[in-house]
């Protein structure tokens, strides 16, 4: 945490500390100091020594401290969350061996407060599960739309299981309804695929591209050069200004913007379709995204080629790696959408490798929130009809 963030964030955290039932704490907690030390850890090991000493103190706390330790994960950075998680593990392990019971009621109250950190709530759930499995089972039933993707996954798993049971006894209408509910809530690829496959077998149509929120309509420009992989660092005209009518000197002649549509239900945009299977080439893909309000989002990208992404002309991230493998949501890129029209530019570099598995020059990009729930553009065009394909569903 940067010093300004520490100065602002920690007082805010302690000011907002509340008992699990939402009531304000009667007095400052004796654990507040050590918790503050854990929350102050930051990059490259900063704050570790103080955190280690504080952790020793926290790890000796009793079971009653668990809601406070879990609550301390709210707004904590990922490193601090891990310190806190390890403290929870240590407390539960030691106190459990001493025969002390988990504070199930307090953990349940914590779990039900969806404002808390999703991972902390999942941890609370797992502790409840350990102490009272039937209670946990009952709780998970209502969590199909939970902000915690892990809690949601368990709830969706149950929906899928119920739907399959209905299907087995011939109640196809009920099964279809339950599969549809499961699909709406599912955020993990395997569960999405499972629900979609079952629905299609029941004669229902499924728009996977829309479910994920893949961007399907692009303009692409290229090819530009990427000999000796130098294109990644080279600044070609589309990085300086988007002029969709412009023509540029390219690798094989004039480069201009052409339409490219992702006729793949997993949103794959195949650059080879625009320019042919080139090697040592660079292309740009451009799309616009209209939203009715400013909001944070995640761009989730899958790409086996070297790439860079800009949102509203601001570089979000880039990675210079080729053909090592990819999967849906490979890269999660936090970004900010502005009200109205947003521009998204993707740079894609293809390298010199000649092996058959290095032909791919493609990407998938979707816009979603932190749970993976699609954010759809206000002016989203209908999903393109999928091209006939023999390709298997995406499984990773």
């Amino acid at each position, binding site marked *: 945490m940067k010093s300004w963030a520490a100065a602002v964030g920690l007082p805010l955290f302690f000011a907002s500390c509340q008992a699990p039932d939402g009531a304000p704490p009667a007095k400052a907690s004796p654990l507040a100091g050590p918790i503050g030390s854990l929350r102050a850890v930051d990059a490259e*090991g900063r704050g570790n020594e103080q955190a*280690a*000493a504080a952790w020793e103190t926290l790890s000796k706390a009793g079971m009653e401290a668990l809601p406070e330790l879990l609550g301390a994960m709210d707004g904590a950075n990922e490193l601090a969350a891990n310190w806190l998680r390890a403290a929870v593990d240590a407390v539960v392990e030691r106190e459990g061996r001493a025969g002390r019971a988990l504070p199930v009621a307090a953990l349940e109250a914590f779990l039900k407060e969806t404002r808390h950190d999703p991972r902390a709530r999942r941890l609370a759930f797992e502790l409840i599960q350990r102490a009272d499995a039937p209670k946990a089972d009952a709780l998970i039933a209502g969590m199909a739309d939970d902000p915690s993707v892990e809690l949601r996954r368990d709830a969706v798993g149950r929906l899928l299981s119920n739907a399959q049971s209905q299907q087995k006894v011939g109640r196809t209408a009920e099964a279809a309804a339950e599969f549809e509910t499961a699909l709406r809530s599912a955020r993990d690829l395997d569960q999405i695929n499972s629900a979609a496959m079952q629905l299609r077998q029941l004669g229902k149509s499924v728009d996977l591209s829309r479910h994920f929120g893949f961007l399907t309509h692009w303009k692409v420009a290229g090819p530009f050069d990427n000999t000796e992989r130098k294109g990644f660092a080279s600044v070609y005209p589309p990085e300086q200004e988007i002029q969709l009518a412009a023509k540029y000197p390219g690798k094989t002649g004039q480069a201009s913007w052409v339409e490219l549509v992702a006729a793949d239900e997993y949103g794959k945009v195949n650059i080879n379709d625009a320019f042919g299977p080139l090697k040592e080439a660079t292309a740009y893909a451009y799309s616009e995204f209209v939203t009715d309000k400013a909001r944070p989002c995640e761009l989730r990208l899958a790409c086996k080629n070297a790439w860079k992404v800009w949102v509203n002309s601001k570089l979000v991230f880039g990675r210079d790696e080729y053909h090592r493998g990819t999967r849906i949501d490979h890269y999660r890129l936090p970004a900010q959408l502005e009200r109205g029209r947003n521009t998204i530019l993707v740079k894609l570099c293809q390298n010199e490798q000649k092996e058959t598995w290095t032909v791919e020059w493609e990407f998938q990009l979707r816009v979603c929130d932190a749970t993976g729930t699609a954010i759809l553009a206000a002016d989203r065009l209908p999903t393109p009809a999928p091209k006939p394909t023999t390709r298997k569903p995406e499984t990773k």
Partner: protein
Amino acid sequence: MKRTLLLAAAIAFAALVEPAALSAADWPQFRGPNTDCVSTDTQLPVELAPENIAWKTTLPGRGLSAPIVVAGRVILTCSSGPLQERLHVLCYNAADGTLRWHRQFWTTGRTMCHDKTSVAASTPASDGKHIVALFSSNDMACLDLEGNLRWFRGITRDYPNVSNSLGMAASPVWVDQTIVAQVENDSESYCLGIDPASGRNRWKLNRPIGANWTSPLILRESSRNLVVLQSKSGLDAIDARTGKAAWSYTDGASTIPSSVSDGETLFAVSQGITALRPSASGPPSQLWRSGQLTPATASPVVHGGRLYTLNNAGVLSCGKTVDGARLWQLRLKGPFSGTPLVAGKHLYCVGEKGHVQVVDTAAPEGKVVGELDLGEMLLATPAAADGALYVRSNTQLWKIARR
């Protein structure tokens, strides 16, 4: 409270900088005490049968990191969840396999990797009092032997392009009160020398750009310890405390199997095997080079004047360390990902198809004298300590000992 915390911090970290407390019976890191996969244990089982399984335990996640054994504890890492975003560090009692402690962490780096490998690919390392666990997400946790967290690092969080979409696998080594971790890849490629007391960098070296799954090799010389870093460019021997280069070998090297040393000669996985004699004052001199002993995934092992390698076909080759001449070959039940372990005249080869095979290397052409089918894919290098062999799969950890 602040003063108390600082005092506690000072006490806690004083413990971290004390001299190493490893016992000769410990197996504290990938490929053992000297990163050569040689065990001095004379009580390892040879003729294997199901009755030799002293205990086995089900793991909470997958992994191909090797177990380490320190002070009667077996320490292992796993990863779980649909995207392997949950990390586990587990500590079992070596005597009976009961769980002493279990710590979990959430990844802060990317978890993408090839289906065959896992986020728990790197083997932990220990100084005898603490352990450090590194994962493919480049998350690194340091704990003491009772599971108390000393520090946690998110190396990809620190350096956002440190990652490999096929998965990272280099295991750290703990030498001269420094943790040496190679986090080399196609983009931001580094080797870090980390202060065990604080988890902060002592030094950070830029390394050759390129995916690299090899692990550091410790060269124990009379006056100093060197750590040999391998990459596609070759070998770089560095001082662990400072990261300063002692010498380099620039004739290229493998990025999968790691080189090995018998204390005098370094057997580089370079253009087959290249035998090098390190020098105190300059680059190593080349003794010989052989294309007949080229290893596949598993690293070579060296013992008693013999070098052993496993090729893609599961054929074990035995060569003379003095000149690289191949003496014999023996087809085993492969293929192999884990590096064999040698103890006396016996070589323990753990095959991907689940077979633990014991080879008598003193037999004229080598001979399999013990075999146990564990019935699961085995990718990890085994560990040996206190008369027992430890083997792990994606689901189980076994202790195999004499009856």
